């Protein structure tokens, strides 16, 4: 983990900037979405943060299988928990957004199905961890499942929505790409917001990891 406090402060400042400037900034007037487009600064960074967290978890799972150090397994598990937290936030912000633009909290959309399935897979990962008592066995089995599920879900989330013909999300099927025609002024808010949330995710992961290590030390 990175030493120092500067990256935590940077994350906080970036998010503060994205909240304040994201509400003040001039957004392009589009039909149906109107002002709700500002949710882009909050909804999409949640998924970015989730993916980065799940990717971190994958890296630590692979590291565990090659090193067999329990600390790597601990970080992998906490990264999944943090990723799940951001995934649930992403689902919630998305559902509210969907209610106001598409008229329903849940629509049958490849992107939504992918999100639901990946949250399900990682909840299954937590259940798998809970069902094994022996530490080394738990670490090994859950690392294997983590790698297996991540690879399949990356295929599922990364390739399938692009193959699907109809999606309400931009950038898929007949719609135009998200980042390509994003307004330059909005990009000035969106990218800092994404970086800020990713930094905050790493901060949360750091705190969770330290708390877990302290808990383990207190146990006899």
């Amino acid at each position, binding site marked *: 983990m990175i030493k120092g406090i500067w990256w935590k402060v940077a994350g906080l400042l970036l998010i503060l900037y994205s909240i304040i400037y994201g509400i003040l900034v001039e957004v392009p007037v589009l039909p149906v979405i109107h002002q709700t487009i500002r949710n882009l600064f909050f909804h999409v960074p949640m998924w970015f943060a989730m993916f980065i967290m799940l990717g971190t978890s994958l890296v630590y799972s692979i590291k565990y299988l090659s090193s067999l150090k329990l600390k790597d397994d601990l970080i992998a598990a906490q990264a999944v928990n943090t990723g799940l937290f951001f995934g649930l936030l992403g689902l919630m912000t998305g559902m509210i957004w969907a209610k106001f633009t598409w008229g329903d909290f849940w629509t049958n959309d490849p992107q939504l199905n992918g999100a639901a399935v990946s949250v399900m897979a990682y909840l*299954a990962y937590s259940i*798998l961890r809970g069902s094994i008592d022996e530490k080394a066995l738990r670490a090994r089995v859950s690392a*294997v*499942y983590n*790698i*297996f599920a991540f690879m399949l879900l990356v295929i599922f989330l990364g390739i*399938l929505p692009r*193959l*699907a013909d109809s999606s309400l999300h931009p950038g898929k099927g007949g719609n135009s790409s998200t980042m390509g025609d994003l307004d330059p002024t909005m990009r000035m808010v969106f990218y800092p917001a994404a970086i800020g949330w990713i930094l905050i995710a790493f901060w949360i992961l750091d705190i969770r990891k330290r708390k877990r290590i302290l808990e383990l030390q207190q146990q006899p």
Partner: protein
Amino acid sequence: MKEIIELIKKDFLLEIRQKYALNAILLYVVSTVFVVQLSFGRVIDETGWIALFWIILLFAAFNAVSKSFVQEHAARRLYYFTIAAPVSIVLSKIIYNSLLMVSLGFLSLALYVLFLGMPDFNAWLFYPSFVLGCIGVASALTMVSAIASSAGNNAALMAVLGFPVVIPMLLLVINSFKLSLNENILLLQVIKSLTSLLLIDAVVVILAVILFPYLWRK
């Protein structure tokens, strides 16, 4: 290679000696198909046909594949461990389960068609994607069964772990089934959906070969 063939033979023999397991799955397929026939009659729209068929087949697959590692006792596991390499064990299980699943799939398809009729599918897309889908589901579930059996043979765990892993494959197969209903599909579309199925099968098998040795050593 010889090891793998021997292990497949062993699994096949075990299956024949314990006929009740296979018969139970067949009876399950017959009864669910019959229930579907009772409630829908012969007339059923194509999407419903595809969905119900895969639901029936999916549960049959869960029953058929989940016992592949669960049926092995701890002592017997130790014995395999001393005589065979983990890679050949997992490959033999995947090949055996794929064969089982494909034959089970065709049997169920025959029954299903008998009771409910067959929509007008394009055979060039329908059968290859059916076989590839069966292989994919079987190999993914083999791996999940290995994971679940390491965690203490919990049946609920198998379902919970299996569904998220199987859904990508299922969606691809169902999409290509729907595509094969189309009367004038392009060759490019056929190739695209078949290669994506092939790709996902290959990924599952490669992952299983890489990851299984970590599960096996204890």
